[in-house]
């Protein structure tokens, strides 16, 4: 019993690229701004996975550090853009203390 010749990381990278293309399509045609934020968030999360898979594909798993950093920045960025779209402001809530956190 032999494994197929194509590497498992190739399969994973191709699948991630296809998923990224599909979600970027939604980011371009999304009717509301929230659709675009959602699609860009998913694309960013898939980028973390693409970086990790590329590290394994290249034989250098140190790329995982970059992936971890990208995950952190992706989360903060999504929350910041969501709050900015919601309140038109990153600092102060507009409608009292209940609406302060996103």
């Amino acid at each position, binding site marked *: 019993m032999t*494994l197929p010749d194509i590497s*498992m990381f190739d399969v*994973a990278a191709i*699948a991630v690229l296809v*998923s990224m293309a599909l979600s970027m399509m939604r980011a371009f045609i999304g009717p509301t701004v929230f659709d675009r934020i959602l699609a860009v968030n*998913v694309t960013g999360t898939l980028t973390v996975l693409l970086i990790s898979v590329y590290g394994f594909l290249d034989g250098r798993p140190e790329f995982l550090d970059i*992936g971890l950093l990208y995950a952190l920045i992706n989360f903060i960025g999504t*929350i910041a853009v*969501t709050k900015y779209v919601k309140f038109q402001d990153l600092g102060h809530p507009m409608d009292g203390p209940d609406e302060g956190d996103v």
Partner: protein
Amino acid sequence: MDFLQTVIGPLPLADWLSWFCLVTGSFFAIVGALGIVRLPDIFSRMHGAGMVDTLGIMLMLVGLMFQAEDWIVVVKLGLILLFIFFTSPTTTFALARAAIYGGVIPGPKEAERLEEIKAEQEQAKKEATSSNT
């Protein structure tokens, strides 16, 4: 039958486990991305995003863990997995709340809802006339 030398000793079928996790994760990632493209409104598209984040990416990270040659790689993959595990629901919650606040109506569109109401009214009229006669 190959025994792969992993960080927890020689593990039988590690390559096959890795293949299984990566292919299943790829399937769920593509299905979730298709859901993001094809589902009707933002709240149902979040379901597709959740599929990508949980089953897709977590299974693929677990599949990568079987291929690690060092403890620190497994720890880093686990940290990424834990981080995505906590941030994905938080992002979805914040986005849903922002969408509600921003005036997106969940459920069918207003035109469809008006048509439904009209159809119900016509049916009520018909019932009223038939009961009169």
